[in-house]
């Protein structure tokens, strides 16, 4: 079925012609197929050009990480220095802190973030009043559409120790609240992760809800006949149905483990919590773009280090998932 135009012809022709066709086939057929698909290639032209320029060219430009960038010489003319910039990053006295901060935020987010949408989806499925369930579902979606800037300002307004939301609500119960969580390094990852759950739980649940709707009803009926109660049915029927999707999500998240949400971190960062909120991407931004004398090669090396680790991780985890769970992204 590779090409529609070539295939029907041999049927109409004599045997000899078919042999002839086969002899010159490969090149001719490819050429014919290309010609047959010229409109499709026309459609692909712009998107592929875009990919080449805006995605592949920066990859090629990442070689600046192995050179010593001088604005006069540009990317292509600067001198090669090998792994010097990588080594400089590994030797940097805050290297360990930056790596640990990055890992802490993402692993924390991964562990806490996965169960909530799953639980929400199950709750919604078993909500006896469908209208009520639908209403709750729509409410939980809403924060997804909030921008990072607004999200961070909501966090600030919620946690404000003077007249923030938590302060006001606790005051109703006569509880004094005077923690400034955004100024506490030890609270940074928690604030980051839990506000993230608040924002994305509902939206992430959509996929699980859809999967649960697709679970065969007869399985549940059979289990009920066998005397399984709701909790048992959830554990043995619904939960297994969700596992493949959870695995895919975990693979994706592992690939992004060094990729802590840059915008949110940067906006939540202040001089008081900086010791806990400096992650790889904010460091690259500060040294490479915001600085008055950007250290181009060095920060490119740091960024490349992050990309390569992410790529290796996603590759390895996907391999493992394919081997042991028979699941894969590609």
């Amino acid at each position, binding site marked *: *079925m*590779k090409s529609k135009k070539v295939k029907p012809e041999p049927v109409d022709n004599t045997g000899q012609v078919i042999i002839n066709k086969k002899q010159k086939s490969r090149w001719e057929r*490819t050429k014919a197929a290309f010609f047959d698909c010229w*409109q*499709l*290639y026309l*459609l692909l032209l712009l*998107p*592929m050009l*875009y*990919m080449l*320029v*805006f995605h592949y060219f*920066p*990859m090629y*430009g990442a070689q600046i990480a192995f050179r010593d960038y001088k604005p006069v010489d540009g*990317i292509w003319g600067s001198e090669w220095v090998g792994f010097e910039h990588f080594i400089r990053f590994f030797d940097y006295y805050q290297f360990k802190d930056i790596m640990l901060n990055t890992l802490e935020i993402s692993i924390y987010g991964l562990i806490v973030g996965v169960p909530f949408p799953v*639980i929400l989806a199950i*709750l919604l499925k*078993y*909500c*006896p009043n469908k209208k*009520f369930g639908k*209403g*709750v579902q*729509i*409410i*939980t979606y*809403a*924060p997804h*559409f*909030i*921008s990072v*800037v607004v999200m*961070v*300002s*909501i966090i*600030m*307004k919620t946690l404000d120790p003077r007249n923030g*939301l938590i302060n*006001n609500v606790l005051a109703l119960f006569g509880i004094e609240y005077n923690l400034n969580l955004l100024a506490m390094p030890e609270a940074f990852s928690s604030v980051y992760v839990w506000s993230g759950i*608040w924002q994305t739980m*509902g939206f992430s649940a959509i*996929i699980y*809800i859809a999967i649960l709707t697709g679970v065969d009803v007869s399985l549940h009926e059979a289990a009920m006949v*066998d*005397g*399984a*109660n*709701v*909790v048992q049915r959830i554990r043995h029927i619904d939960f297994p149905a969700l596992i493949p999707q959870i695995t895919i999500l975990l693979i994706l998240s592992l690939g992004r483990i060094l990729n802590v949400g840059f915008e949110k971190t940067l906006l939540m960062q202040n001089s008081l919590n900086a010791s806990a909120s400096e992650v790889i*991407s904010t460091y*690259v*931004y500060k040294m490479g*773009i915001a600085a008055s004398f950007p250290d181009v090669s060095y920060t490119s090396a740091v*960024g*490349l280090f992050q990309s390569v680790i*992410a*790529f290796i991780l*996603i590759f390895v985890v996907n391999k493992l998932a394919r081997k042991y769970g028979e699941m894969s992204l590609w």
Partner: protein
Amino acid sequence: MVENLVKNTKPIKTKKSKQEFNSDTVFYGIVYALLIVTALIILYPLWYIFISSFSSGARVAAGEVVFWPLDITLDGYKAILDHNSIPTGFKNTFIYTVSGTVVNVVMTVMAAYALSRTKLPYRNQITLFFAFTMWFNGGMIPTYLLYKDLHLIDNPLVMIIPGALGIWNMVITRTFFQKSIPNELLEAATMDGCSDIGYLLKIVLPLSKPIIAVITLYYAVGHWNAFFNAMIYLHTPEYYPLQLIMRDILIVGQNMEMSSSGYTMEEILYRENLQNMLQYSVIVVSTAPMLILYPFVQKYFVQGIMVGALKG
């Protein structure tokens, strides 16, 4: 076990008619309780922002606004109109969102459709060419250098062109084309001498409303909320999108031109409260359009997301 069997088999036949009190009843009670708590936790901060935007700044600052707006006023909203850069920000964001989304959807459909056609030679290789960039990228700095070479720095086009195609959206759109458009249509259209582009325009697009709606919403929300590119690449305030201006107002805490000279204490206090109200009302005004857009697309949503999640 036997007890359970008796208790549990009954409701099936009567189809959920008044069940007796058993462990399942407790379960449903917990379900309700958790859902109510979840809804409250998510709704309350949004409600708080909403009521604060209508309340007098002094009452909000005193921490008195908890359930309902107090001393209802529209001063915060008036302050938006009087602000020297918010209206421009709105205009810019609107332009970036509309033009950016149009570019996105056209690019996405072109690529997704071509890659959905099985006859395309080297289809898998080309798909990989697109998909690979989801797993690997050159990094922030080489990208910055590239934009500099392309003269995209401080150029409003930086809000549209670099994000012209979202790979993930392209992949789900392609999957939708493959899964939801019957092959028989293609065969029939080919018989009638329909060209590839003709088939896309006359048959595929009219049948793909759900996925077009979903990716349009995704892209539009992305543009509306975008601030990263603007922060890094735009330096002229006239080009600033709303989110960047909001960052200054909400997070950096940049005040309205406030020269304290010539003002009485009362006036300074009033301005401070106004600043506070402006923060709340600008959150409401900036977030509302996307929240309003969503219900129109909602009916397509599960369908669109589901198709995208299935591998293909």
